[in-house]
Each structure stands twice: as C-alpha cells, then as structure tokens.
C-alpha cells in the first residue's frame, strides 16, 4: 500500500503557491474582462437551463442564535436554501435572493470552519447535494475559440460570488476535524469525482485553484477513490494529448500528481511506470507545453528521485519527442534535461549519454542562439561537468565535430565565445584525445562525404532498377494484351491457352509488380 504524504495544510507544490485565493483577488477582477464577459454572454448559460420557476428566498434565523437543539435542523434548511441557483449574467435580477443565499453560504462556511460537532451524519447527503447542484454544470463553450491561455484573458465565471463560497464551504467541510471519511465516501463517490475532474477544464483560474486544493484533500482522505482518481486523470491527459489538445486544468492536475508521486511506495508499481511512460512523457508533445511545463518537469524529476531506473525511459522519451521546429519548446526541453541531469545517478548517465549528447550537439548547432546558448550552459553546471569529465572518452568524440564547426560558423558572437570556453574545458580535460580529434577532423569530414556519395549512388541504382522493372512489366502487359486481342480475333493457335485466362486481370499498376502478368509473358 502506498502512502501519500500530505502536509497538514497545503500540499507540497513545486512552483506556485497553494493558497486559497485571497479576498482581493476575488473582488478585484479586472473590470475590462468583466464588462467584456457580460457583453458577450448576455444570453444565458447552461447552468440556468433547468430553472423554470424561481423560488423566492426568505431569510432564516442566524445559525449562531439558534438553540443547540435546532441547530442541525437550521443548518439543513440553509443547505437546502443554497440549492437555489441565480442568474448572474443578469446582474440586477433578484438581488435580494442573491444576498440571502450569499449570507447563508457565509454562515455555513463560518460554522463548519469554527464550531465543533456541527457535522453529523444526516448533514452529509444534504451538504454534498448542495455542493453538487452548485458546482456541477456543463462548462459553457469558450468565448474565444482560439483561446490562448498565455495571451488572452480568461473568461471569468459570472456566478463566482456564490460559487466561491460553495467551494470554500466544501473545502472547510473536507478539512473539518469532524469530517468522517467513512460517512463521506457514500456520497463523494466515483461519479462525483468524475464530475469534479471535468470542472478542471474551467477557464477561470480561481475556480481551478479551489478545485486543486479540494481534489487534493479528497485524494488524501478518501483512500478508496485514489486509484479511480488516478485513472480518470490519466484519461483526461490522454484525451488532451491525442484527441482534443485542449484542457485548461493540466497544470493543476499535474501539481496534485506531483505530490501523489511523492507518496508512491517503492518499488514502483507497473501502473505507475506505465503512467510515466505513456502519459507524462507524451504530455511533452502538447502545443501548450509552456503552460504546465514547470509542473510536468517537477513530476518527471519526482519519478527519478523515487526510482533511478526510470531515468533511461525518461531521457529516451524526451529525445523521441524532441521539438523539431519550435525553438521555444526546445529551450524548455533543455531546461528539463538539466533538471534531470542535476539529480541523475552516474551509472544511469552512462546508459543514455550517447543519444543524449548527440541531441545536445544538434542543439549547439541550432541557428537559434537561445537554443544553442541553453545547451552550452550545461558546461557551467558543476555536477554535469563532472559527469562529462568522467565520460570524456565517449562524449568528446560525439560533440567535437559540431563544436569545431559551429565555432567557425555561428552568426552569434556570444555562442562562439561560449563554444571556445567549452573547447578549452575539453582541452584541459583530455588534451591527447582533443589533439587526436582535431587531427582527424578533416579525414572524418571526407569519410562522411564519401558515405553521402555512396548513399546517393545506392538510391540511384535502386531507382534505375525500379524503372527497368516497370518497363519490363508494362511491356509484359502489352504483350499479354496483344495475345488476348489475337485470341479474340480467333486466329490464335490455342484459344484455351492460359493467356486468355488472364483476360480479366487489370493491367499491373505502375507501383507494383504483378507476378501474374510477368509469368504469362515470359
């Protein structure tokens, strides 16, 4: 059984802080985006579809004034009251009702957070129902079909004033010292979790932030759901990678996974290795990698720190998906490689140094100076430098030709001087090898050219051969046709010869060798 290390208040998070959005953040949304949102979405939203008749809310007595005997009953009534949904796109509609609900939600949050003994069993289904009714909805279509999370402002959730309090209540509910997982698991079931996960696609970062903390708590407290949650996250990622390329909550889910991976028991289960190889590594192919790269790299490094034997899978995977045209992503990949090399075990390093340094050499010769620069910075890293030094015999021959050539050709002076430094380092490491390589550089170049010529020669030969074959076959087909025609005219010697049996065969296609036609002709 694996364990998940769950720090009491916040999960270990690699990059961003895990705090619940502060009050200013909630109130102070940029006015421009609000105005835009209202303008564009002035119709209504899926959330309010099934609200046929609006119930008039009447304020209930305050929880804190209620006698102990009636407290639970009142709590329950407030939960039911909060199940009524309001149209926030029409910002002036039913202001009174909205205010009553807001006050009730505030009270519920307050009560769950501060007083003990409130959460008794009968309240669980009511609380979960209230949460479900409010948060589960089909997310509306994105306002901007080409929404670019890096450039565009997200569409903020209009009903956030209520939604935030519902999320807050859910979080307090999960964190309450009275919270009993054994009771909750009856209501927070697989279906509930699935819907919760779908909400991670919300464009509103505030909502995703809450969801992240909440899912983390659910994972921590409801052990029976763990495998299911991991599987569904996998499905979301696979759909994102191979089907839609669109999901707003990848970074948040990865952040949770970072802390889940941290808690994996050793030796790693094959399920977890499969997750690494088939989900995490392919996530690197995503177009929007930059949005979640930090979290992804963190997860990858976590895996390596758990179990060094996965290093080879990781590096080979990254090399397989190495960006071909996007230099921005290439720089990210190089950054991730450096993070990996920082913690790599020397024995693992030796297993992958060859393909890895071929790629690094390719990066050094990139015409984009940021790529070349990022790769050359590896030589400033003490640990990496020590690994290179230990394996100088292997690595130097791999990169030498590139370094030598690029030092003479690169347009960017910074790159040229960085390369000189690297060459100098190598010279100091192993001057004998360095001299040998310098001496044989020209010869190697010649050999390469020769191989090139031989390859061209081979293909030329093959193509000529193909041409001859084709000619032969067309000729064969023509002969056959002639024979047939003669047969049809009736002046053939042997009308039942096999040639006529082929009469319904199509002429051989130019791309393939039809053995049937060939035989009958020769």
């Amino acid at each position, binding site marked *: 059984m694996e364990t998940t290390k769950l720090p009491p208040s916040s999960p270990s998070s690699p990059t961003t802080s895990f705090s619940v959005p502060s009050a200013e953040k909630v109130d102070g949304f940029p006015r421009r985006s609000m105005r835009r949102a209202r303008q564009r979405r*002035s*119709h*209504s*939203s*899926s959330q*309010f*579809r*099934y609200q046929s008749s609006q119930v008039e809310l009447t304020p209930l007595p305050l929880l804190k004034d209620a006698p102990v005997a009636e407290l639970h009953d009142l709590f329950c009534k407030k939960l039911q009251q909060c199940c009524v949904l309001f149209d926030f796109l029409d910002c002036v509609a039913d202001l009174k009702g909205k205010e009553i609900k807001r006050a009730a939600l505030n009270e519920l949050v307050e009560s769950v957070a501060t007083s003990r003994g409130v959460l008794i069993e009968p309240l669980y289904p009511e609380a979960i129902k209230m949460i479900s009714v409010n948060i589960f909805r*089909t997310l*509306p*279509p994105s306002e901007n079909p080409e929404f670019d999370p890096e450039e565009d402002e997200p569409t903020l959730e209009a009903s956030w004033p209520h939604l935030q309090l519902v999320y807050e209540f859910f979080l307090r509910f999960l964190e309450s010292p009275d919270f009993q997982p054994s009771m909750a698991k009856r209501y927070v079931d697989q*279906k509930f979790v*699935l819907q919760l996960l779908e909400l991670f696609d919300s464009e509103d970062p505030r909502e995703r932030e809450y969801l992240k903390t909440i899912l983390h708590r659910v994972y921590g407290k409801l052990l029976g759901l763990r495998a299911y949650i991991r599987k569904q996250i996998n*499905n979301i990622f*696979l*759909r994102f990678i*191979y*089907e839609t390329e669109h999901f707003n909550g990848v970074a948040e889910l990865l952040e949770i996974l970072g802390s889940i991976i941290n808690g994996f028991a050793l030796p790693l289960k094959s399920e977890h290795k499969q997750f690494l190889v*088939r989900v995490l590594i*392919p996530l690197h192919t995503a177009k929007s990698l930059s949005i979640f790269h930090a979290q992804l790299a963190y997860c990858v490094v976590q895996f390596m720190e758990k179990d060094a034997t996965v290093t080879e899978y990781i590096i080979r995977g990254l090399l*397989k998906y190495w960006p071909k045209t996007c230099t921005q992503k290439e720089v990210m990949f190089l950054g991730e490689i450096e993070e990996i090399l920082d913690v790599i075990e020397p024995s693992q390093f030796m297993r992958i140094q060859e393909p890895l340094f*071929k790629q690094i050499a390719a990066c050094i010769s990139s015409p984009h100076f940021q790529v070349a620069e990022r790769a050359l910075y590896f030589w400033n890293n003490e640990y990496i430098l020590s690994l290179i030094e230990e394996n100088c015999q292997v690595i130097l021959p791999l990169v030498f030709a590139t370094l030598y050539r690029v030092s003479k050709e690169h347009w960017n002076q910074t790159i040229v001087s960085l390369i000189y430094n690297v060459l100098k380092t190598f010279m100091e490491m192993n001057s004998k090898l360095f001299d040998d390589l310098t001496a044989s550089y020209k010869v190697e170049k010649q050999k390469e050219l020769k191989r090139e010529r031989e*390859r061209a020669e*081979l*293909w030329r*030969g*093959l*193509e000529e*051969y*193909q041409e001859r*074959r084709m000619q*032969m076959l067309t000729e064969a087909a023509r002969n056959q046709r002639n024979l047939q025609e003669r047969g049809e005219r009736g002046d053939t010697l042997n009308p039942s010869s096999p040639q006529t049996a082929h009469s319904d065969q199509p002429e*051989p*296609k130019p*791309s*393939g*060798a*039809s*053995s*049937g036609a*060939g*035989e009958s002709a*020769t």
Partner: protein
Amino acid sequence: MAGADGDDSLYPIAVLIDELRNEDVQLRLNSIKKLSTIALALGVERTRTELLPFLTDTIYDEDEVLLALAEQLGNFTMLVGGPEYVHCLLPPLESLATVEETVVRDKAVESLRKISQEHSPVDLEVHFEPLVKRLASGDWFTSRTSACGLFSVCYPRVSSTVKAEIRQHFRTLCSDDTPMVRRAAASKLGEFAKVLELEYVKSDIISLFTALASDEQDSVRLLAVEACVSIATLLPQEDLETLVMPTLRQAAEDKSWRVRYMVADKFSELQKAVGPEITKNDLVPAFQNLLKDCEAEVRAAAANKVKEFCENLPEDNREQIIMTHILPCVKELVSDTNQHVKSALASVIMGLSTILGKDNTIEHLLPLFLAQLKDECPEVRLNIISNLDCVNEVIGIRQLSQSLLPAIVELAEDAKWRVRLAIIEYMPLLAGQLGVEFFDEKLNTLCMAWLIDHVYAIREAATCNLMKLVEKFGAEWAQNTIVPKVLGMANDPNYLHRMTTLFCINALSKACGQEITTKQMLPVVLKMSNDQVANVRFNVAKSLQKIGPILDSNALQTEVKPVLEKLASDTDMDVKYFAQEAISVPPSHSSLFTPLAAVILEPQSPQRTTTFSPSVRWKVLAADGATSC
C-alpha cells in the same frame, strides 16, 4: 519469369536495412517513403521473408517514420506477391495499430481496411479476423481503439460463428472502461450497423446505441447522435418510434450543449432518416427548442439548418408548419445577442422566400431581411447581400433597393479590408439585378473609389470588378463612364495609382474592343513608358504584351515596337527583362515580332522571373515621390 528476381544479389538486405536504420531521421524517413523501391529490388520472396520480419521486429521509431510506414504497407499487396500473400503484411500493421500516436494508428487502420479487401474469405478468417480479436482484447486502450475500425470490414465476409464473435467483441468495446475506446466504438457504431443483418441491428445495435447515448461522458454521447442517422436509415419506419426516438429526444435535450450542438448540426440528416411523419410530430418542436437554446453555439448550428429543414418538410403542410412554428423562432433570432447566430441565420434566411412564395415573403420575410441589412455586424449584412439572388427570383430586388444602398455603401467603406473585398465580389451580381441607371447613379463612384484603396487586394478586385461590369453593360458604357476616369489616374502622383491604370487596361482592353484600346488606352500606356519609377515601366512592358493581340498590326509595328525596343535597353534590369519577354513571347497571333526576337535575344532562362522580386522591392524604396500608400 527469368529476369524478375535476377538482380537480387546486387542489393544485400543489410545495405537496405542500414538505410532504414540511418541515424538521421530525415534520411530514415526518406528511405521508408521509398520502401516500395526497396521491396522491388528484393523481389517478392525476400520482401516476405526478410524485409517484413525486419519491419515488424525492429522498427521502433519516431511517429513520423511510423506514419510513412503505415501508409506504404497499405499499397504493398503486389510487392509481397499478390492477394494470396497479402496476410504477410498483417504483423507490422498490427503493431502499428497499437502505437500511441493517433495519426499513426489511424493510418495503420486505414491500410488494414484497404488490404482486408484483398484477402480471400478463407484468409480473412484464418489471418485477419484473429488479428482483430487480438487488438480488441489488447491491454492498452490504443489497440482496442484501432479494433473498433476493423469490425465492419471483415463482418460481411466471414462465417456466421465468426460473425457472432465479432458482434460480441464490438459489444464489449462499447462498454469499455476507458472513454477513448467508447468514443472509438461510438464513432464506428453507424458504420457497423450498416453491415449487420437487420435482426441484429434491432437486437444488438439498438441497445448499444441507447447505452452510448446515455454515457457519463458527453464526448461519447455526442458521437451516438452521429450513429443515430445511420441506424434510423436502416430500420423500418414502424420501429423508429420505439427503438430510436426516445434516445433522440433525450439527446436533443441533453444537459451538455455539445450534444445538443451535434443534434442541431446533424438535423437535416436526422430529418431525412426518420421520415416526414416523425419530423412533423417530434422534430419540429425539437428544432424550435434548438433555435431557442441557451447556448449561442447551438442556436447558430440550428440557424444554419433553417432553410434545409424547411425545404425538407412534407409538402402538404409545409407552409403551415413554417408560418406557425418556425418563423416565430426565426424572427427572434434576427435580433439575437450573438453575432454568429445572426450571421448563420443571414446566410440561409433568404432561401426561405422560394419556399414561402411571393406574398408571404413580402409580408413576413422582407421585414427580417431589412432588419438584417441594418445589422451592426458587417458579416450579417454581407450574408444577406450575397444571397440576394434567391429573393430576386421571388419578389424582385426593387423591394429591397432602398435599404440595400445604405447597407452597400457602409460595407464598401468598412474598416476591415476583407469586408470590402467581399462586397466588391457581389458588385457585378448587384449591378445585373439593379440595372444600369441605378448603378450609374448610386454605385459607380464606389467602384471607382476602390481603385485607389490602400490595400492591394482591394485594388486588384476592383480592377476585376470593372471588367465584369463592362462585360455586363457593354463597351459604350465603358467609354462614357469608366475609361476616362481610369486613364485620368495615369497622371496621379502616386506610382501605385499609375500602376492601377495599367492593371485596369490589362483587364478592360478585351471587353472594350480594338477601337477603344487603340485610340484611347494605347497612347496612355505608351506615354507611361517614360515613367520615373521602374515598376511602372516594366508594367508598361507587361501591359503591351497583354493588349498586343487586340491591336492591329499597324499600331503594333509603328507604335508598340519602338517603345518596347527602347524599354529593352532600359537601365533597369527588370524593365529590360519584361520588355524582352514581351518582344520574344508575343501572345498568339502577332507574328511580327518573331524575327526580331531571334536577333535581339540571348537565350533567356525561364527561371529569371524568380529572381526579380528582391530588386523590385529595393526599387520601390528608392523610387521618387512614391509613397507607400
């Protein structure tokens, strides 16, 4: 037979395999793309025994290489020795059908489907069907996804026991654990239903369809809507109500807008599949709801279908249904808050007039057209204008012309050049429908103004527009109204406008005829050969080449030739080039230049043209007062 495999020894497999294994991905990719050449060199026998095992076992590669391989293998039947050996291709394709990358997998499935047709029924059962089974029960979702696409190709050609197994496998995949597989199964459900016997459609497919249509994931449910079309087509009318309609009704009111969108998007197909009776009772109210949906995406998809839906209504009470049920919704959409909805509607609404006839159009539709012509969104107005021909047939365009004009003028001056471009393209049509007087009075100035637009694409389209107008209204009209203005621009201080004159002449000369071209246009062109800007001069050369065929030989000899000869010795190399081009390649009949060309011209490489653009760019920068406009 003799020579066929005779060259084998020339190409040891090791050399070829080295090529397929080359370190450089690009080279590897090139080799894979020429796999058929390699196979041909090896001959069919060695392709089967050496090449294919190598491909099956050792190719673990970049997706791009795998994609090329998957594609190649689909065309390999002849290279392995024809249909009797085609099953040799299955092992490599099987492993390609299990890779992660969707593009590769799909290509492998496509190739498998292709070669399945080349299998004999026996081979299909011995080799192909077991492969499908293996894929269908694979561990990882990718192989199961691929299996979904293969059932329908082998089902019709296997024995009934195997058929039963195939049905069972499909059933299992429809309730697969991973949504990816369920999606694949749902998307193939319609295709599979088509090859099944009717009894199994009723017993098996319907229950699968119902289950998929109420899946927990909306991405699965919406695919079931697509299948609904095929299934409904297969079933006899009397079964539709009980077997299909409950599910379809539920889909039309699904809580996810994506599913409702799919219903709206497939509405015409659904309508045809379920027939007139169900359409009347069920689909009309469903369509009304979709037109009133709370998500703009759904409304827009439904609005797009308004015309088609109305057209396909049963004729006996079509008009009544439209007037009482559809039109009220349409009226609301005209003032929708979302511009995509309005513009979707505007692109089809005019089509209703032919269905409803003259009186209804004037009474009910005309106000809507007019409202949309005044819409704030240019796309809406444009869509109305672009469909004017439908209304023209029914009520004549005059009814609209009062409102049309302001709309056109506004679009003509829209800040977005694409909008201006779109309206220009409708000018000839409008001119034809509105008549020459209306045009001269109201639209002519617009057409001329476009000639000096600051976007080249607009000037170009305006030129083309003039040509079409002349074709419509005749040479005399051209001479009186547009030619003087066009020629006047030859003296414009802006060289771009001067060039526009030349472009217009190129376009108009043919429609205007020899008289106008020789008397009015030619002198202007010739005069422009002295322009300071080289771009103008070489366009003079091009223009002369273009209008040459229209001129008589006297003008060619005495006027055109000397000018071209002068230009051919211009200081600018591009001017020279085009002048020589005009002399050497005289269009069709003007034979007089041929001897001349033989004298002057050095053999001119045709690639020259590609080299001219950089120098032209430079020239424009260096040119006199030429503003960048």
